């Protein structure tokens, strides 16, 4: 655990104390909650901004966002921002599809399978 210290004006402290009293929590606990709430929103915003600009991939963005993967995928839909993958990468992926025979990868116990499976 780490400690963070910061200064606030007297009137800001008074407001924080009032709210802390209403919420029945300590001033330190209230300050921590407010910072983390702000941080949670900020890290989602930064993660999606960077992913949308193609500066980071999906996994880094997901981890940066602090969301579960399910929530992250839902957020992609909400914000309509997804990962940028170049044409070249996609074409190489499609080319790989055409060169790979599934029989090379089947487990020996599944040499004969009834297809389709799904």
């Amino acid at each position: 655990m780490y400690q963070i210290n910061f200064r606030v004006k007297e009137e800001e402290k008074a407001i924080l104390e009032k709210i802390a009293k209403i919420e029945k929590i300590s001033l330190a606990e209230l300050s921590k909650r407010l910072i983390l709430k702000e941080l949670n929103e900020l890290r989602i915003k930064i993660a999606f901004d960077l992913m949308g600009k193609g500066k980071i991939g999906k996994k880094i963005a997901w981890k940066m966002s602090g969301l579960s993967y399910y929530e992250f995928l839902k957020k992609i839909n909400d914000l309509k921002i997804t990962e940028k993958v170049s044409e070249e990468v996609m074409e190489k992926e499609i080319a790989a599809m055409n060169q790979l025979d599934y029989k090379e990868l089947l487990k020996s116990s599944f040499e004969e399978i009834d297809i389709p499976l799904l």
Partner: protein
Amino acid sequence: MLFLIDTCFWLHVQTIYRDLKIDLRILLKHFRWGYTEQILQEYKHYHLQNFVPLSDGYQIPFSNQELKKFQEKYSFIREFDISDQTLVACAKRDSAIILTDDGGLLMEIQSWGKLGFRLPAFCLWAVKKGLIRKNTMIRLLRFWENNHLFEKREIKRWKNELQQVR
């Protein structure tokens, strides 16, 4: 040859199962697939151990010492997290194909001359080989399109590929 599967890929498979009730584990269990100790830790961290059929996969030995050597030789690999670093290293060492949901990792794999697929391409590959019905793929593509999980041009490209399947 085997598939090495990253955490995001499994989490996406889990999302498909949750939202569409399409269980891609049925397909995956027929193949040789594996994970490293570091990947296993990540599966556990994200509570995937009850979803991922671990007993169907192979744990690929990859020591921390090997990882350290790999990092020293290819320092840029540190851009990825530890679990993904082990995947890249294993794909290079063993003839493995990476299944990932991360475009960054896919690009890295391709730059090493190795094969990798994201979930839509993997499913499309399975359709082409007759392992998945075309109708199942249509449902999957609709899901990805409606949820904006991939760019429009990618969805369009995959649809074009699907149309060529008889």
